[in-house]
């Protein structure tokens, strides 16, 4: 559900972290009918123009805080709320050029009552 609403339209932006590393971000929503504690977000796979971003180069940021995907696994005090727009940041070796890019975001969630671990993804062409 909500697969085609994960990536927020017109949300591609250039990013520079405090440590100087650069990349791009999109706003994203959890494809689920409720929010989820961050420890249950197993993975956020980002692909830009067909190129996979390594897991260690993805950051999740919301309400002024930022996590690596490994840090999220043991974050028990915060959550990705229902419908909440969070920033998914992809750090890149070289700058992403201005113009159109195909961005894919796929989210894997550990949901207690499901007998499988679902992944839902969205692909959109956005302009930087």
């Amino acid at each position, binding site marked *: *559900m909500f*697969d085609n*609403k994960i990536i927020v339209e017109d949300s591609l932006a250039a990013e520079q972290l405090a440590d100087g590393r650069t990349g791009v971000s999109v706003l994203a929503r959890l494809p689920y009918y409720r929010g*989820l504690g961050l*420890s249950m977000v197993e993975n956020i796979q980002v692909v830009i123009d067909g190129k996979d971003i390594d897991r260690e180069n993805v950051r999740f940021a919301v309400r002024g805080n930022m996590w690596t995907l490994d840090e999220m696994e043991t974050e028990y005090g915060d959550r990705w*709320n*229902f*419908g909440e727009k969070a920033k998914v940041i992809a750090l890149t070796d070289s700058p992403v050029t201005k113009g159109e890019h195909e961005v894919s975001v796929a989210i894997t969630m550990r949901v207690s009552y499901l007998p499988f671990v679902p992944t839902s993804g969205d692909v959109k062409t956005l302009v930087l």
Partner: protein
Amino acid sequence: MSIKRGVSLYSFQHETFLGKMNLEDCIRTCAEIGAFGIEVIGEQSFWGYPEQPAKTSDIEHWHALMEKYGTTPVSHDFMLDYKRYKGRLMPFDEQVASIRRDIDFARQLGAPFLRALVSIDPEVLVAAAPYAEEAGVKLLLEVHAPLHFDHPWILRHAEAYDKCGSDALGFLPDMGMFLDKFPQVWKARFIRNGVPQKIADYVEKAYEDRVLSEYVIQNVREMGGTGPAIAMAESLRHNAAYEPKRMLAHMNRIHNIHGKFYEMTDDLVEPSIPYEDIIKVLSEGGYNGYICSEYEGNRWVEDAQEVDSVTQVSRQQKMLDTLISQYAK
């Protein structure tokens, strides 16, 4: 006393997800269509919960809305994320403590019932029952397809509740377990996903013929089905046309009902779920609690059309109103 009408705000998930409706819009809509019972999934409608306690201002807003629109809280649906920790299940005592927190939350909302997901261990609910009794609320296991009232897991729950003797434990059946026909919105979506028409027609017919899911899956494979065709056949593993009369043996423990539906046509019919039979059975069983609409069609149509949950819920409420007047007065 007759059957009462309510709505689970789950029904408006498309609009609330996108910020097109807020909590007040949902409650006002329910009141306008004469569905005065309100069910919520706490962590859908109250941001921050359960990692953070609900904000006092949010709780006050909730009660102000109930007052303003004349609505009544019915149920808080809790989730109990026992897989919160990667690679290990939440310990038993922590699961019980988690339910206690939800009981406190339900009391804050003024909801007499809590929905427990069907996979929860019966002993965890039994251990939480005394706290629920003290709080004056009931924990209701959602009996949901593919589980049903004859399934050993549900019978085990019923036995555990009887043995413990607490009237704070009960059931909340989801009407999706009485799926009579393969929903047209599912079939259309599977076809858009790439299922050949011939296979889609076969699966629909096989469902109506009550063919065992494993045979249907095998037959679809032999017809050359892959990917979405297998997924369509596998949907039969998770759904079946169970018998509404099976609720009758448990009426003393059924206190709330999910009026699941996938599509209401413009002549006010849910073609896949036999609501007329269901209302007759509930009437026979003397049920006088709420049926809360639970619209779950959005995920089947959102790729092809704009979702209109309000129209869908409104149609179902009209249908329920008619059937209740006809059979359950």
